[in-house]
């Protein structure tokens, strides 16, 4: 599997996440939503936030020049006392071939594609983060039954999988699907 991963490893230069839709869970009132929004607004790469208070979903727009940290988004929601239920990132691709377990270095983030059909990505694509802490526990267990690799459990590059050029064991790898 490591062999395949190296073959399918690609680097997408000059790419940047454009925006995201983040649904938070565990909130019970607009005060909770406000606390979450104000926490997210402190991130240096967040340009603007539009909330949908009925679904607790925040539409985030990112700054062009500041790198986006996917984990920092999760941490802000958790610090507000809640959890991420769904994070869908909008990313721009230019003829990138993906299939199951392919790895892509996208704007400095290693993305490991899970549960996808073989396809070529072009233009804005919505990718959903399925790592622990980005989806409800029940869903994480469901994906865990499909994706058996160790890196899915830890979110870290390990010796047996996810061999990525220029990256060492214990570096972050985000598992995503389309």
């Amino acid at each position, binding site marked *: 599997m490591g062999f395949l991963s190296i073959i399918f490893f690609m680097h997408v230069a000059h790419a940047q996440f454009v925006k995201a839709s983040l*649904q938070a*869970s*565990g909130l*019970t*009132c*607009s*005060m909770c*939503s*406000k*606390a*979450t929004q*104000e*926490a997210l607004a*402190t991130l240096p790469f967040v340009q603007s936030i539009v*909330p949908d*208070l*009925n679904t*607790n979903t925040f539409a985030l727009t990112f700054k062009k020049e500041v790198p986006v940290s996917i984990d920092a988004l999760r941490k802000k929601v*958790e*610090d*507000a*006392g*809640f*959890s991420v*239920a769904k994070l869908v990132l909008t990313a721009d691709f230019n003829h990138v071939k993906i299939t199951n377990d392919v790895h892509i270095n996208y704007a400095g983030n290693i993305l490991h594609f899970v549960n996808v059909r073989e396809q070529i990505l072009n233009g804005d694509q919505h990718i959903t983060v399925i790592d622990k802490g980005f989806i*409800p*526990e*029940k869903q994480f267990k469901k994906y865990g039954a499909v994706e058996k690799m160790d890196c899915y459990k830890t979110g870290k590059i390990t010796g047996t999988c996810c061999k990525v050029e220029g990256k060492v064991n214990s570096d972050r790898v985000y598992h995503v699907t389309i």
Partner: protein
Amino acid sequence: MKKIFMALLVAALCFYLPAAAQELYVNTEPASNMAAKSIGFRFNNKFMKTTDSRFGWRFNPELMFGLSNKWMWHLSGYFSDLYQHTFRLEGFSTYAKYRFYANDDVHTHFRLAAYGKAALIKNPVASEEINPDGDNTGLGAGLVATRLMHKIALSASAGYDRAMDNAGHFKFPEQNGKDAVGYTLSAGALVFPQVYRNYRQVNMNVFLELLGQSNLETGKHYLDMAPALQFIFASRTRVDLSYRFQMDGDMQRFSDRSFLFRVEYNIFNAYK
């Protein structure tokens, strides 16, 4: 009268369809914590009849800190005219809560927390009830479990309270029994808005809470019911109203009914 009130309340709850669950309980703390790096200011006012039949007032300002997503900490001061005709400082208390388990889904969650409390109070001991919120010096610790379901949020707590001698040489009477267990059961729901439009909309929530205590040495107990109403303004300021009354009990208490009026203001991202 009490039975009629209870029957009406139960009937109203059965026919009423809440918009969503709500766990910002008025008389108890949920297992959930406030946001990390936020500071909250609470101004608690309790009104009750005094032993000499006056209308007494206890003012309890409270500072709340969200230390992390797991830890929160409260500092309280107590002032009242309950034990004398003039208004004076009665003492302080501190409370810490640690949320050690959370399983969140979009419309449901289950959380567990542990808490500890310490109070230093200078008042005569005039009640068999052990109340670290202004009446007794003492220590307490317990567990809270909060379950959010689609339309209602339920929370239960159980704790241990130990009374000590009050400050100012006011001894705790041996025969009162120093050790007690406390238990609470709370339910809460959002009434409006049914559909959110923005952060400026006023939220209204309703709560029904049961609060009890049993003395481990004397076996005496009480069980109170406390319906409560809550308004949230601009998603930042909270106003709570609650009437608490005894349903059952054989303890000699300072007052078996009280009215609570609270204003709470929160500052998010108050510090780095």
